[in-house]
């Protein structure tokens, strides 16, 4: 089994109702892609549960946008909750990239 695609969600702490929308979308993707995707949630200002992807880490230092969503280290959407379609497309693209490697 190859390494799972990492989804990263950056949300407020405590979460707002829109943050919960972000998480609902991301969790639905994890359900749709069992064994292929995992989700890591970063809460603003709180210790990281694990090292963020370089792109997300760069975004932490550069800007100040809530929320931000990444798949496999690539930016999906920021400043609003993503749609299921947007995240799914990003995951499919990441899976294709992994498959071709």
């Amino acid at each position: 089994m190859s390494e799972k695609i990492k989804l990263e969600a950056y949300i407020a702490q405590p979460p707002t109702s829109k943050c919960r929308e972000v998480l609902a979308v991301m969790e639905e993707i994890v359900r749709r892609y069992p064994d292929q995707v995992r989700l890591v949630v970063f809460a603003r200002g709180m210790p990281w549960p694990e090292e963020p992807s370089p792109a997300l880490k760069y975004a932490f230092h550069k800007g100040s946008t809530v929320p931000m969503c990444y798949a496999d280290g690539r930016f999906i959407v920021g400043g609003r909750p993503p749609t299921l379609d947007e995240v799914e497309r990003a995951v499919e693209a990441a899976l294709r990239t992994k498959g071709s490697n």
Partner: protein
Amino acid sequence: MSLEWRLLRDGITDAHHHFAVEEALVRLVDEGHSPPTLRLRQVRRAVFVGVYQDTWSEVDVDYCRQHGIKIVRRLNGGGAVYHDLGSFCTSAFFPRTVFPHSDEELYRLFAEPVIRTCADYGVAARFAGRNDVLVGQRKIHGAAQIAWYSAFVQSGTFLVNMDLAAMERALTPPALKFADKPARSIQERVTSLAREVGRELDVAEVQARLVDHLAQLLGIEFAPDELTAQERALADELLAVKYSSDEWNLGARQSAGVTVSTRTPGGMVLLSADVDGGAIRAARIRGDLLLSDGTALERLERDLAGCRLTDAPAVVRAAPLPADLQEALVALLAEVADNA
């Protein structure tokens, strides 16, 4: 363009409560429950730490506790700053769609009223870098932004009668931060309007001038008003669960006993190590590093735990890190060994 905004002077000077109100406002502007607002704010002696800063390495926590200086982690990024009633901050809360400008343009837009206010006192200030207003080479006003879903916050700190010596004492920035800058101390890098004018100034008068310039330049009519009941309730909740907690404001205290740092071409590196009997009990590596293998440092920290100091250089050189970072860490380990 003529807009009507609330002008808020809530008078909340406790640093923790103060930031709970900031967060309540951005949340409620996003949800459409609060109007666009300019908040003029002041706090009693406090240090504001950036949202991702390590409080323990940026602030002299013990000194602040002994002298009644509160420490609060703010919502936006940037460096640690000292505040007292001699300075004031502004926060403009608005739906992002109100201004068509880019984020960079907003920094310039909101800096111009500051520059004009300085000019009112005969002080020539200029916009510099990404978000600063300088007098000569010294910073007199700093700014930060937060994009929070549909809402946006443009904040600024205006140093008026700031006690620069107190600021110097409360903050303990790593000396290396100034290594490539011409001015090394905080007092050499920042100034206040009072210092430039040569006399104490009335903060309320400076605020009034700034608000007039903001109104004129941004085409905004400001109507004084108070916090709503909903804003107060949310602020109280955020104060209880977040802003009054050490977990938020201080984060976890480093267990490591020695912290050393150096500069590499990739940025500053800090190594904290807890050494006992010639062996590393725990290690923590931080810095401004952007590595392609984001987990390499975590793995190295784990590998170093339990390792003898004499064996540690070989462990570092075996880690999948750039050669210059490896050598920097080996040098830092030697420094730790010297201090152990």
